[in-house]
């Protein structure tokens, strides 16, 4: 039974090797002679203007989350579309109900103003 998992293990190791390997090689092979100048901030010769971890507008997150939500839900439609001809009316109605609920959610967020930037 366990041998079925062999490909997965291979993938895991490959993934690790690809991710960690180059960094490791760079770390091991590259010369490392830090001095004060090398460790100081560098941006076109000026000190940094502000933190590189800038604040995003909160609305960005809202829209992003809503996008992911709808994106995922719609992803459900693809497998359905493939077998739709086998499912017949039952499948069609079921999907209609599902999409209707999705639309209701959409109407709700729209009306609530979640999609308005300003």
């Amino acid at each position, binding site marked *: 039974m366990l041998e079925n998992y062999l490909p997965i293990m291979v993938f895991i190791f490959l993934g690790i090797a690809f991710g960690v390997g180059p960094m490791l090689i760079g770390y091991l092979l590259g010369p490392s002679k830090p001095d004060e100048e090398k460790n100081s901030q560098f941006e076109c010769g000026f000190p940094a203007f502000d933190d590189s971890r800038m604040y995003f507008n909160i609305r960005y997150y809202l829209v992003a989350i809503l996008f992911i939500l709808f994106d995922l839900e719609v992803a459900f439609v693809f497998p359905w579309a493939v077998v739709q001809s*086998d*499912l*017949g009316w*039952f*499948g069609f109605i079921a999907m209609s109900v599902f999409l209707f609920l999705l639309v*209701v959610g959409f*109407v*709700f967020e729209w*009306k609530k103003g979640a999609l308005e930037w300003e």
Partner: protein
Amino acid sequence: MMNTFQFDTALLLVALPEIFLLSSIVVILLVDLFLTKGFKQVTYYLTQFSLFITGLLAFNLIGHPETVIFSNSFVLDNMASVFKVFMMGATMVAMVYSRHYLTQHSLFRGEYFVLVLLSVLGMMVMVSGYSLLTLYLGLEILSLSLYTLIAIARERSGAIEAALKYFVLGAIASGLLLYGMSMIYGISGSLNISEISAFASDANLGSRETLIINFGLVFLVIGIAFKLGAVPFHMWVPDVYQGSPTSVTMFLSTVPKIAAVAMLVRILIDGLGAMHPYWSDLFMVLALLSIALGSVVALMQTNIKRMLAYSTISHVGFIMLGFVTGVVTGYGAATFYVLVYVFMSLAAFGIIILLNKKGFEADQISDYKGLSKHSPWFALMMLIVILSMAGVPPMLGFYSKFFILQQLVSAGFVTIAIIAVVFAVISAYYYLQIIKSMYFEDSEKEIVVSAPMDMKLILSINAILILVIGLFPDFWMKLALSLF
């Protein structure tokens, strides 16, 4: 392939309450969107109306022969129907109380009611779930709605903190539960409750299978114990109870307990009943710990919501003891207990809400000083509720405790019964503190009851019924017994 999806629409009738409720939720959500400011009450009335109709539909299905639909994942039996009716009733009462709270604290929003309805839908799915997946689905609908409900008071940092705590811990518990489910699925090869039951009761079960089932069982029990709030998975209970808006506390401390018991019955009794000897020991320990900790720690509380949280923990211990007995009547006793608990808890929180007004939460025990002078009637109602919680006859709360203890004793768990009673006696002390401050102490500030008439009326009926049903408990006990 085609045959699998042949569908008899008549079977949809079996899930009619759920279908109706879902449709109502959609309608209410949309209607609320387009209501102008002055008409927000419409949402409330629509909510009550749809709860009522759903309850009626569920009531109609009592006595319906046991039916399993949706590819063996949804069951309709008497337990499901009766629980649904009770959940609708309790939610309606909770909504009556909530409305006063929401208006007093400017929290009246349409989303509140939609979320409550959604969580009720989740609970209905849990009650009728006949496959591990359906049960989990219901649980998640319920939990996600509850997290959001708590956070509805978003300008209160306490509520946000409570919501986050509940969410994080709830997610861990859900994870554990799901892990347990996957264990069971992995070994039995099925998600369906009856197939799992058939697998677990197979006499030729090898030790490897037993081991894995038990491994999964521990996770399942923990997931359920978290939902019920049993020690040592109780840590969220006091914080969440205290931090949430009182109306949400009331809701989440009452109705979901019925659903949790239903899930317990579905998984541990319908599904893994054959494994009773393995999980009952665990249950016993958790139950006794809950009773002990709930009773003793409540003594130190000055916040009444926190105190009720610990009292809930100890009540949960009693409920779990009913399942330790391993006999059908014991399960009936536990069911009776949970229904009674919901009833009492509603009334207790109802009285807290009753005294609420803008800027005054009435959540300190000292806020109840001298209540008997300012409003003797509601002090009397509170007295009934508190005595019932303490288990003083002839209040309803006495019978539920008595029923559990009687079942324990006749199942041979005499020592357990004694320990439970000892802690019940200790818990009488903190209940007494409330009575003491209501009746024997003078108030520091004026308490004015500003609640609307409908709330006063329902609350009075609620409390009086605790006494009246206490005088005629026969019917309800039989009802609880008949569910198994």
